[in-house]
Structure formats: structure tokens, C-alpha cells
């Protein structure tokens, strides 16, 4: 088990290096940050001097290695736009995104699994069919449109919920949270539904199809033949067996909740890292973009590692031949 974890961590580091290299090779096509940093009144001399200061005159490999040298010490450079250390800016913005992602994730997993199980058990019922039809909306409507529709309905027409921002936040140490104030909680509702709806419907449809598959298995028939209660058959026997494939997809979806919070954050002007990234692209703020991409890759890689470890926790067959399997 330990050997497996170590191997996976090494693989993960390799993935991070490649992501960084790809990112750096592409930054030069985003635009020239110098244009944005110096005003109209600039000389070629100013441009060359600043370019030299920032190290932008060097080949991207050199820039990348310098970035890595700083990154391993927790130094991601200074934002071109704000003139402050990138790590400070990220730390400031990360709580907003992480709270939003956490609420969306919990909604998506909780409601997704519950509805998936329900629609599988009552698969010919009216309610189950209605939910399945409605879920097509969640799968097919683009996120920004859902966000705009929700804002129109609940903010503009009904006036129940705020249409943008985080509301009031409370500062605890280095973390700002919106969980502790009424306006903060209210502000979370629409963005988290917008962000989690697609994942929720996806998880629901996946749980449903896996569950239908499992309910056909002999061990479910045998569990019924032993006179176990329906609840025990459905949840203890069937649901547990659907979890391995569901966890794989759910893990990746959680990663994308964080990564694709960009769109939701833009629609709701949510002060998180996604909005930060969009602004950074517009300004060609290379240190911010690089740090953001690395952060997202770390999260994806970390979630994948956790998913792999969860397999072992759920499925005893993997534990038995763990050396053979990997």
C-alpha cells in the first residue's frame, strides 16, 4: 500500500511538471504583458528594461525553471497587475472558491446519489420518470445560461436572493468564510446550484444506471431470497456495489467543479480564484496564471489519488491482490 502511494505521488509530480511546461509554452501566445503594464507614454528603452527585469527576454524553458525554483519554496512571484505576491492573492481568493465548490460538491453528491437510487428503485414510477426527464436539462443546458436564468427568476423577478458577490464574510485567521452570516449563506445558494447542477445530474444518471445493473445481479436475488428487508437489499447490498465506478467519476467531477468555477464565478461576480484567473488572462498576468494552473493540477492529481485509495477501502478484492493490480 505504501509503495503504491509513493509511486502515485511520484507520478503526480511528473504530471505537474508536464502541466507547468505546457502552460509556460503557451503563455507567449496570450499576449505581451508589457503592453498592459506600461502606459501609452513609453519608450523602447522602457520596454526592454522591464522585459529584462521580468525575465521575459529569456527562452520559456529558463522562465519555467526559474518559476519552479520559486514554486518549490512557496514563492510564485509577483502579480504584474496588482504588484503583490501571487501566493497572498491566491490565499485571499481561495476560500471563496473552495467554499463554493464544497457546497456545490455536497449538493451534487448528496442529491445526485439520492435521486439516482430513487430513480433506479422506482424506475417505472411517474416521479422517477419525471426526474429523469428534468435531469436532461441539467446535462444539456450550459452553466452560464442556468446561472442567468436563476438570477432572472430569484433575484430580478422574485428578489429573494442576491445576484452577485459573496455577501458579508467573517474572517477567521487567514480564511474568510460566508458560512456564518445570513447574507453570506444566501449569496451561496444560486452560485452553488449553478455550479453543481451539471455534476448532480451526471452523478444521478450514473448512479441510476449502475444501480440498475447491480440490481440484476445474482447476489441481489440471493439477498432477496434470504428475506432481507428491501432497505437492506437496496442500500447495504446494491448501493455499495455501485460506488466504485461512481467514485471514479465523482472524483473527477469534484476536480472540475473547482476548475470550472470560472464560469459561475464570472456570472455571479464571485470573488474567487476563477474570476482572478479570467482577469489575469485579460491582463496577461503570467505569474497568476501559472500559479492558478499549478493549483488546479495539484487538486486534480490529489483527488485522483484519494479516489484510488477509496477503491481499496470499498472493494476487498483489490486489497487482496494489491501488489498484482498495480
Amino acid at each position: 500500500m505504501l509503495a503504491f502511494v509513493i509511486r502515485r505521488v511520484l507520478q503526480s509530480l511528473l504530471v505537474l511538471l508536464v502541466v507547468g511546461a505546457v502552460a509556460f509554452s503557451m503563455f507567449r501566445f496570450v499576449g505581451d504583458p508589457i503592453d498592459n503594464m506600461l502606459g501609452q507614454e513609453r519608450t523602447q528603452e522602457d520596454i526592454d528594461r522591464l522585459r529584462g527585469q521580468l525575465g521575459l527576454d529569456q527562452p520559456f524553458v529558463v522562465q519555467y525553471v526559474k518559476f519552479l525554483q520559486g514554486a518549490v519554496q512557496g514563492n510564485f512571484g509577483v502579480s504584474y497587475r496588482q504588484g503583490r505576491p501571487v501566493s497572498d492573492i491566491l490565499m485571499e481568493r481561495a476560500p471563496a472558491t473552495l467554499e463554493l465548490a464544497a457546497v456545490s460538491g455536497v449538493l451534487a453528491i448528496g442529491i445526485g446519489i439520492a435521486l439516482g437510487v430513487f430513480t433506479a428503485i422506482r424506475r417505472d414510477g411517474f416521479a422517477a420518470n419525471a426526474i429523469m426527464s428534468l435531469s436532461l436539462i441539467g446535462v444539456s443546458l450550459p452553466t452560464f445560461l442556468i446561472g442567468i436564468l436563476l438570477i432572472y427568476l430569484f433575484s430580478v423577478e422574485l428578489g429573494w436572493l442576491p445576484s452577485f458577490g459573496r455577501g458579508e464574510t467573517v474572517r477567521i485567521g487567514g480564511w474568510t468564510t460566508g458560512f456564518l452570516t445570513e447574507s453570506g449563506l444566501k449569496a451561496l445558494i444560486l452560485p452553488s446550484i449553478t455550479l453543481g447542477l451539471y455534476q448532480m445530474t451526471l452523478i444521478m444518471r450514473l448512479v441510476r444506471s449502475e444501480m440498475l445493473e447491480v440490481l440484476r445481479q445474482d447476489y441481489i436475488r440471493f439477498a432477496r431470497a434470504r428475506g432481507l428487508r428491501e432497505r437492506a437489499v437496496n442500500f447495504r447490498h446494491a448501493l455499495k456495489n455501485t460506488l466504485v465506478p461512481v467514485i471514479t467519476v465523482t472524483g473527477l467531477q469534484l476536480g472540475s467543479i473547482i476548475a470550472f468555477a470560472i464560469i459561475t464565478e464570472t456570472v455571479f461576480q464571485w470573488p474567487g480564484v476563477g474570476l482572478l484567473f479570467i482577469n489575469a488572462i485579460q491582463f496577461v498576468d503570467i505569474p497568476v496564471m501559472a500559479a492558478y494552473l499549478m493549483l488546479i493540477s495539484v487538486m486534480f492529481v490529489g483527488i485522483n489519488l484519494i479516489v484510488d485509495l477509496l477503491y481499496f477501502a470499498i472493494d476487498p478484492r483489490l486489497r487482496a491482490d494489491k501488489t498484482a493490480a498495480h
Partner: protein
Amino acid sequence: MKPVLSIRDLTVEIPTRHGILRPVSGVSYDIEAGEILGVVGESGAGKSMAGNAVIGLLSPPAHVARGEIHVNGTRIDQLKGDAMRRLRGKEIGMVFQDPLTSLNPLLRIGDQLTETMQAHLGIGQADAQRRAIAALEEVGIPGAAERVNSYPHEFSGGMRQRVVIALALCAEPSLIIADEPTTALDVSVQAQIIALLKRLCRERGTAVMLITHDMGVIAEAADRVAVMYAGQLAELGPVREVLTTPHHPYTHGLMGSTPLASKGKARLHQIPGAMPRLDALPDGCAFHPRCPHAVDACRADPGPRIDTGSARAACLFPLVQEGVA
């Protein structure tokens, strides 16, 4: 003494777009306590369907359309939902064909045993755990006290079928439906499993419906045998008599197509043709298109029904005087 299982005129129907199919049609038989009734027939003859009807696990739209099922004198074919669930495992146990897929791969076998006992016997966790170990010992699992914490994949096929039998018997049902319990096993293990099933049922006085297409298993284990053909009972009688002097031409054909060492290298007899599909059953006796002795009367008259004990074979012209070819 009342029979443990008593089936009268059992008919299972499946409504389809092309009409109603009857995978089981007018079947009647009893099984006494401690008795093993072998149910034989080709695939699709309705033998498993009858077993599923008894334990109330027909998959919809299949349903019991006619007839009665009594277990220990109580009529059960009309029970629904939770009332039927209480009987499953407690009164009627079931052993499935494939031990590799009958056990939940993610649960320890001890947990699967204790949950079954706790669902029926109203006992505590510690008591159930003790009984689980005893149940595993009884089916011949070595080191039961440790093995109770193992997962299904840590057992061989034969051992898993022993676990399945322990599970089916752990709430002490009075009837066991064993649906092809040895078909998926190695030949060397088959005899052990049959011997185990036989011993446990003798000791406890459990009635057994042993569904199989293997005549060898029937000869080895069963007291009486019911031969099914196209959803109907073709012949019912004590196993020795049915096997040595079959009355129904179909049984005779089945016996002729079973390889026996005593017959040497003689060519195996085949029954010409195939069992009719359920949506295209012939009039009269269902077997007449394949029967070497069929006459015009067979095309109109299905022959006597086996439900009163008066007839042994559902045939107008039983082969009473003929022995096995």
C-alpha cells in the same frame, strides 16, 4: 402428516404483446419433510420458474395466474410485500446455481450470515456471530472461526457453494429450493455438495426441491422425481421407478440420452426435434410432435393430469411394460 410444500395446479403466466405465455402450466406436487424431490427437464421447461414462483421471486411481468402454493399448510401464493419477505429465508431457503455470483463481493461472509439470521430470528449481534461460525462449521468449512471474517473472493467455488448453503439454511427453513446447485461446479466437487445438501436436510428434516437437468444428480440425491416438459409435468414418481421404468416417452427419451458406463460405446439416443417454444405449443400433448409413439388421439387430448396421484405420467399411452432400451 401434512407435506411441507404443496403445489396445486400452479400456472405462471407472462403477458406479452403476442399473447400470454405459460412457462408453468397446471403443475401439482407435494414435498414431505426430509424428502428430496428432483425436478428435471430441459432448459426452458419451467423448472426454475416454478421454484421462483414458490419463493415469490418471479420477475414481473411473470406472475402466478392460477393454482395454489401451500407451505406447512399455509397458503402463500397470495402473500405480498413484507409478509412474503418474512417467509423467504425463514420458511423457504434458496440455493442458486452460481456460487461465484450469489455472494455479495463487498461483504464478509460472516456479515451476510448474521444479517440473514438477524432479519428472521430476532437475535443479537454476538449470538448471530456465534451461530454464523457454527453454520459454517456445519457445512464443512475448515477454520470457520477465522473464515467467518473472510470475503467471498477468498474462497474456492466449492467452498463458496458451501457458504451459500449455510446462508440458505441459517434461519432454519423447512423447505429448500436448490436451483441447479452443482451445475457451475467441478465434477469432483459436485458429489460433495450433493452429499452435504442431502445430509443437512436429512438431519433437519428439511424438504428439498432439487432443480437440475443432470440425471446423475437426481439418481444420487432425490427420493422422488418430477419430469417437466414445456411447462407441464410429464411424469412424477419415486426416483428408482421413474429412472428404470419410465412411463412417459419423454422420460424414456431423456434416459436414453444420458451416457451410462454400462451401455458401453453404444450410440446415445437423441430425442428428435426441440422443445416447442412457449408461444407455439401444439394442441393436445405438448410432446406429440417428437414422440415416436404418437397417434392421432395425442394431437387432441393432452392426456391425464398428474395431480391426484392416480396417474404417474401425463401420457395417454404410457410405456408401462417397456424398460430402458
